[in-house]
């Protein structure tokens, strides 16, 4: 083939690359019977385009299914709250009406009924928070992390259960306020819940790394074995050695889900017996 022909074929290849980059898989490149290197490149691009198209179609179907499942989870959790609150109220009324003798069988059954109801309410609330974490359009704003931390500590009365220290003023980040509250709340409450020390100590620190902020929440808890460090972020996954009665395996999954939805990351560094540090990234304020 002449140089002019080859230039034409190479231009067609460049054009095709541009189309595929724009997710336009409608064009196929001509492949001649010469079986030369340009033919091989053209065929390779055609095959890649075909594979990408299949993946895009598959992803689109999966995204649609996921969106329906998320909506279902949210709606179901939302609708379950009301009857659960009713059950909770009725159990309280029952207790007041029956007024059982302390430590009697009836007293024991009512206590178990209350505890189970609270557990179900907590689980439903967790599912609701997790499914809300994937909502697309949210208000982004500049947030002072020091204020968020103080607010969560005060609201949840964490100062009574842990020694929380902030190293240097934390930065201002660009994020959604209620999502930020939830992240801080989940990380701090997890540190308190799983603490195995007489005094739970938590240190919060932020620094700039490669144009973003990296926030670290370090505790003096039992630590997390390497084989569990990815699993703890999975929904409903609980580390067997540290199962707590009020743990549903949703908190960290929610935190990761929220952060991923905003294009941020979370990971943990820990050794057994040496506490854990949860790191997550945040955009700098505008």
């Amino acid at each position: 083939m002449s140089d002019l022909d080859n230039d034409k074929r190479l231009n067609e290849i460049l054009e095709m690359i541009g189309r595929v980059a724009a997710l336009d898989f409608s064009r196929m490149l001509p492949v001649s019977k010469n079986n030369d290197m340009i033919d091989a490149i053209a065929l390779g691009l055609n095959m890649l385009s075909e594979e990408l198209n299949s993946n895009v179609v598959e992803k689109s179907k999966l995204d649609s299914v996921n969106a329906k499942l998320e909506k279902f989870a949210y709606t179901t959790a939302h609708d379950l709250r009301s009857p659960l609150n009713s059950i909770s109220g009725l159990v309280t009324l029952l207790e007041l009406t029956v007024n059982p003798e302390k430590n009697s069988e009836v007293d024991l059954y009512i206590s178990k009924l209350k505890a189970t109801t609270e557990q179900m309410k907590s689980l439903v609330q967790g599912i609701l928070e997790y499914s809300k974490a994937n909502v697309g359009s949210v208000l982004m704003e500049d947030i002072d992390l020091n204020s968020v931390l103080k607010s969560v500590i005060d609201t949840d009365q964490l100062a009574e259960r842990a020694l929380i220290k902030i190293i240097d003023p934390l930065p201002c980040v660009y994020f959604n306020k209620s999502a930020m509250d939830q992240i801080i709340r989940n990380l701090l409450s997890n540190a308190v819940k799983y603490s195995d020390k007489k005094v739970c100590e938590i240190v919060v620190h932020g620094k700039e790394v490669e144009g973003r902020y990296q926030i670290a929440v370090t505790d003096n808890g039992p630590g997390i074995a390497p084989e569990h460090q990815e699993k703890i972020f999975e929904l409903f996954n609980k580390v067997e050695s540290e199962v707590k009665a009020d743990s549903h395996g949703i908190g960290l999954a929610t935190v990761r889900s929220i952060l991923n939805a905003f294009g941020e990351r979370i990971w943990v560094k820990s050794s057994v017996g040496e506490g854990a540090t949860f790191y997550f990234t945040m955009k700098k304020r505008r």
Partner: protein
Amino acid sequence: MEQRENDKIKFTYTDEGILYTDCFANTVMTLEDGKESTRISAEMVNYIPRPLLCDLTNVVSMTQDCRKHFASAEHAATFSKCALIVTSPISRVIGNFFLGLNKPLKPTRLFTSREEGLKWLRE
């Protein structure tokens, strides 16, 4: 030695117990061609997996479904290991796609010479 052929492929099963498949010039392989190839291969080796030398040199195109079929359990049942001979640019692309994307279930390697491929099959 036994030989068979259809309009796209020549099949040779030697007394040494190696099956060879050679495509005719400018072959375009479709899913139907792949299934037919599997059927003939299975009959020739008497349904016992044997080493396979598959020369893709003359193949100018292979559909996505055909590649998937050759990576399937159905086709894997016909061979113990496969040497793919890829001496032309297009066959190299097809061979690499097959290995990298479709991931055949039995040991499969690409060779640019039949001699090297046979040497590996005889190991």
